[in-house]
């Protein structure tokens, strides 16, 4: 605080409260009286700093430091970590044993437990580089993308419905989910990944006359990123204001780790982001054009645009799926024709009832009538089941159209309006225009509020084009001090349990800064150097000695000087995320359907939830077959209904960008794992698998069950405790249920 004399704090606080009420009305942020007081006293900590201050300064490429325990340095990450540890009188914990490591790597890199055979192969691999080989093989596994996509989809606030009243379906959103999985598996460079999601329609530079180039299907699908915010019945200018504002805030927090959204209504209170910068950034989005609602969409959520299927085999897959679904319609028609012939005089003919629709209804009514003896019970049941499935099938057919929930830039004059003037909106309100602004980059990074240079085509025929590409290129540039840092920090947090900067989507002043600044910068440099390869970063991190440490509690000194384990003197034990809990149950029972990509799946919901939490007949088409046992990444993300199983383990259907999951412990998890349908169906299959593999001997059964569930042999104490439960086939189901409920099933050391 500076030297300004101030009146009694409480009276200032009261005054500021009154002021804030008037000035900040309608704003979604608030600040504590204390923080406002700082402002009133004129001491905006960050106010005086320029782009040379962290995090706006370019990352330094410092060489890894010299450390005492040089023998513990597997790669330079360890040198940076050890330096801090040694300064605090600590060191790295011993390396975890191979059984712990293999389980950690599998859950971390592909989100599934290793099979007993995979565990033994690694544990007994004499090769010098057994660990590195395992890392490489898991990174090459297609299931890697399935695991890591969820982390990105949470950030992208991905869902398959729009939320709010009616919670209407977004039939083509799933293609974006597949795009993310595919991009991660192919190790798409992160800078390209950014450009596609922000400006997929503006890739091709126009050098002359001729047709306006269009986005490739993949680029069109990538742009879904900008369309994933919840959407409710539009209200004209206000909705557009909200939509563009949401894009601005989300893009800033996801890619730049800056809470630019706070500056929508007022200058950012902690970071150097004036309101004007919010609208300067929003101006990059001001030629965004979304398709009008489709006919019949009473919620008016805006429509999709064409985008062909593009991945290898995708077209054939879609075609086959379409045929399969059309088959159901055909089957129904055939049944109707057959039953109709049996009706004879029981139904009105064309003369008696000229309306075809009404005649069809009468026929269905007659078929459905249990008193109708012309049709057997089984036939009737088959008919009604197919009929009930039909609306779901129709919705699936819609999902299979070659469309995407994408957007484009407006065409500009003479076809569509030109570039609109963007203005600062006073207090963030849509109808309080202030001064006009030009599109420009954040001044906290560039040091100026100069307009951005937007590269138009030579004839300026498309003045509305290239605005988002200008922003995307600035974000995805090696010169941008935040982009690489923010992304490597996100990956780090996933691997190590907490970020080097703990607030993953906020690198501003409130973050408190990085615990290991040189390490973060070093990683950011390597990221760019490796052509923005995510897999290169995963490889670097999980190969480090820091990652391979044991998670067992370290020294007393560690508990004293670093109780949060910020310095990483051991590995952080973690509960696996909701998706991995469900996937592990299915993997252990041997019933996980490994099919990759495709339409959203609808696993069975408990009791009558499916009927009760839905809005229309086309929602939650329960898949009782193998489709319902695909991996959790494919589960339909309905904003008004998170699957209770997922919800109990902190899984969520996103409304806004979620940088990290909570990992809480609740009794509802116990009820879910012990009493719930999923576990109690799968225990039977788990038990059958154990019997098939291990025969009748109780101890062999125990060994096999432990190997499948935990990747290890039971201890003597465990054998004593559980031998009796493995003795009979009947009891064995109970044993399997016990193992599913063990802490070890959901915690990874």
């Amino acid at each position, binding site marked *: 605080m500076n030297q300004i004399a101030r009146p009694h*704090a409480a009276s200032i606080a009261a005054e500021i*409260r009154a002021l*804030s009420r008037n000035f900040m009305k*309608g704003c*979604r*942020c*608030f600040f*504590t*009286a*204390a*923080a406002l007081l700082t402002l009133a006293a004129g001491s905006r900590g960050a106010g005086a700093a320029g782009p040379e201050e962290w995090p706006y300064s370019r990352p330094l490429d410092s060489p890894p430091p010299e450390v005492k325990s040089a023998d513990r340095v597997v790669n330079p990450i360890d040198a940076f970590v050890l330096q801090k540890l040694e300064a605090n009188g600590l060191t790295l914990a011993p390396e975890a044993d191979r059984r712990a490591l293999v389980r950690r790597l599998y859950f971390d890199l592909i989100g599934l437990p290793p099979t007993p055979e995979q565990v033994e192969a690694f544990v007994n691999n004499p090769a010098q580089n057994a660990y590195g080989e395992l890392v490489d093989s898991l990174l090459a596994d297609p299931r890697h993308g399935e695991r890591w996509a969820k982390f990105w989809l949470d950030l992208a606030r991905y869902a398959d419905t729009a*939320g709010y*009243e*009616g*919670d209407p379906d977004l039939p083509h959103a799933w293609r974006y989910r597949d795009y993310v999985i595919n991009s991660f598996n192919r190790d798409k460079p992160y800078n390209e990944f950014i450009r596609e999601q922000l400006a997929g329609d503006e890739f091709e530079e126009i050098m002359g006359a001729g047709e306006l180039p269009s986005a490739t299907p993949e680029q069109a699908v990538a742009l879904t990123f900008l369309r994933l915010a*919840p959407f*409710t*019945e539009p209200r004209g200018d206000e909705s557009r204001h909200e939509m563009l504002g949401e894009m601005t805030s989300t893009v800033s*927090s996801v890619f730049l780790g800056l*809470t630019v959204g*706070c500056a929508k209504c007022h200058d950012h209170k902690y970071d150097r982001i004036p309101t004007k910068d919010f609208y300067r950034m929003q101006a990059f989005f001001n030629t965004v054009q979304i398709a009008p609602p489709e006919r019949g969409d009473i919620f008016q959520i805006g429509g999709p645009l064409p985008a062909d299927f593009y991945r290898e085999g995708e077209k054939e897959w879609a075609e086959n799926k379409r045929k399969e679904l059309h088959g159901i319609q055909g089957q129904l028609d055939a049944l109707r024709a057959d039953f109709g012939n049996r009706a004879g005089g029981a139904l009105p003919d064309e003369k008696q009832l000229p309306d075809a629709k009404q005649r069809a209804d009468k026929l269905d009514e007659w078929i459905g009538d249990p008193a109708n003896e012309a049709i057997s019970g089984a036939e009737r049941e088959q008919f009604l089941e197919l009929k009930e499935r039909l609306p779901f099938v129709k919705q699936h057919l819609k999902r299979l159209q070659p469309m995407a929930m994408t957007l484009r830039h407006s065409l500009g004059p003479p076809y569509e309006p030109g570039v609109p003037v963007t203005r600062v909106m006073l207090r963030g309100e849509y109808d309080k225009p202030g001064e006009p602004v030009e599109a420009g980059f954040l001044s906290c990074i560039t040091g100026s509020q100069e307009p951005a240079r937007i590269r138009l085509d030579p004839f300026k025929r498309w003045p509305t084009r290239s605005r988002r590409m200008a922003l995307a290129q600035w974000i995805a540039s090696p010169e941008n001090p935040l982009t690489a840092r923010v992304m490597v920090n996100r990956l780090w947090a996933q691997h190590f349990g*907490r970020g080097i900067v*703990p*607030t993953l*989507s*906020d690198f*501003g002043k409130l973050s*408190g*800064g990085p615990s290991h600044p040189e390490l973060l910068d070093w990683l950011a440099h390597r990221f760019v150097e490796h052509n923005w390869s995510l897999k290169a970063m995963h490889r670097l991190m999980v190969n480090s000695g820091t990652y391979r440490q044991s*998670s067992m509690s370290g020294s007393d000194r560690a*508990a004293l000087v670093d109780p949060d384990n910020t310095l990483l003197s051991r590995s952080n*034990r973690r509960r696996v995320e909701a998706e991995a809990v469900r996937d592990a149950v299915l993997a252990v029972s041997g019933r996980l359907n490994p099919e990759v990509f495709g339409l959203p799946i609808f696993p069975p919901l408990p*009791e*009558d939830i499916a009927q009760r*939490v839905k809005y229309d007949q086309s929602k939650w088409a329960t898949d009782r077959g193998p489709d319902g046992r695909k991996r959790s990444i494919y589960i339909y993300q309905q*904003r*008004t209904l998170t699957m209770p199983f997922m*919800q109990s*383990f*902190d899984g969520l259907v*996103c*409304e806004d960008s979620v940088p990290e999951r*909570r990992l*809480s*412990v609740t*009794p*509802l998890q*116990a*009820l879910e794992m*012990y*009493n719930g349908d999923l576990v109690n169906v799968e225990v039977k299959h788990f038990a059958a698998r154990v019997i098939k593999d291990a025969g009748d001997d109780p101890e062999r059964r125990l060994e096999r069950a432990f190997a499948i569930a935990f990747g290890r042999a039971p*201890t003597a104490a465990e054998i004593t*405790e559980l031998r009796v439960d493995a003795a009979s086939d009947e009891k064995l189901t*109970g044993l399997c*249920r*016990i193992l599913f*409920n*063990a*802490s070890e099933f959901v*915690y990874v050391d």
Partner: protein
Amino acid sequence: MWTDNSLHHPFQTRRDFLHRAWNGIGALGLGGLLADDLRGNDLLAEVPPVPGDPLRERLQVHGRKAKHCIFLFMQGGVSQMDSFEYKPRLRELHGQRMPDTGVSGELQGRLTFPHECVGSPFEFAPHGQSGRWMSSLFPHLAKKVDDLAFIHGIKTDNQNHGPSTYHVTTGSQFPGNPSVGSWIQYGLGTANQNMPGYVVIQDPRGAPVNGAAVWANGYLPAAYQGTLLRDKGVPILNLSRPHSLTEAEQRREFDKIKRLNELHLAARPGASELEARISAYELAFRMQTAAPEIVDVSGEPESIKKLYGLDNDKTAGFGRQCLLARRLVERGVRYTMLINGVQIGGDSWDHHGKVKDGMIKKSAEVDLPVAGLLEDLKQRGLLEETLVVWASEMGRTPFVNGSASGTPGREHNSYALCMWMAGGNVKGGATAGKTDDYSLRSVGEPIHVRDIHATILDLMGLNDEKLNYLHAGRIRRLTDIGGHVISEIIA
């Protein structure tokens, strides 16, 4: 944690802040902060939850009588001028255009269309000591009028169903935020360790607008989510043990799980999250007995069933919800939300047409049960410690777009929501806020939904500005920029 001292030395970073919070915790004697459940976040509440036991009961920050809250949510928009606001002038204007009231925004838009005023078709009369005018639709509630404090002319941020439902139930018109009950749990924990502390009973006919998001924990930990109490079958999802198992067999398996987990923990000393998990299993086991007992109302005397209207088809639905709410209060459940009405349509309070028929139907569902609930709480001495809140999504307009002849309805009105509260420290018979002669919008200082939430928190002994949570780089709270506590209705 915001002492005067902290006002002089505002924290510069989150880390500074947490450092200070750590010291504060030490001073409170709540050591042993552990596990993932803290990460600094929970320290932002004035009396932070106990790590590993987020639902343990904690003391109110300032003394209030209410320990429980029952939140009655009427889906749709209850027509205030047909229920609790007597507007004789409106009846005089029936069938005429609205006089020029100088409104702007959406209301003004609606008034540029052909419209006619709709007077209330219901008779009003004064009731109780307070002499409050009530419509003839609420004869039973009218007898309780001296226990109720009314708030008029409440402003909501959006007049569409989805956003306004979010606004009233979570403090923000945008999705993704914790509901009021989650905040209260986060602030106070719960007294009953055998039941979830936050229970929701929806209309037996179905789910509300926005579905389960209405009782979601948002960015707060999952422990604070509302639990849906189901009206058929087992009352809580996954509550009944697997078929074919007896209670003894289940207990035996639970003991084995416990033993296995203790062995696992023994090899990992100090792992608090693993300890918490062992306790969570024991709580789950106890819930299996406690919850079915709560929903079994067969032992209630006939007189009580009648009091709640269980003997009548019209009132039985909401009557059972109200009776269960009382039983939950008796067992220490902190927050109960009862929802009347499903989505939008004939079963909700959304009367764009036929407001007369609609209000007759809807008021008949709830009038007797709500009055019965108040009566029953009072006779058991529980009203003192239970805050009862009547809420809806929004108010309605005094006019209809179109003609007032025939069977007119009313449009949405985000400027004139009317609510009431009772119990706890609520001053019965009091009134706050006022609407104009037509009930078009408030006159005087407007009351906003965030003021309502600040008042609810205050009546529960919490301070809305100190109930904070750090999420995605921002300190968040129920009332966002802070609300005014409506002191007129507090005794």
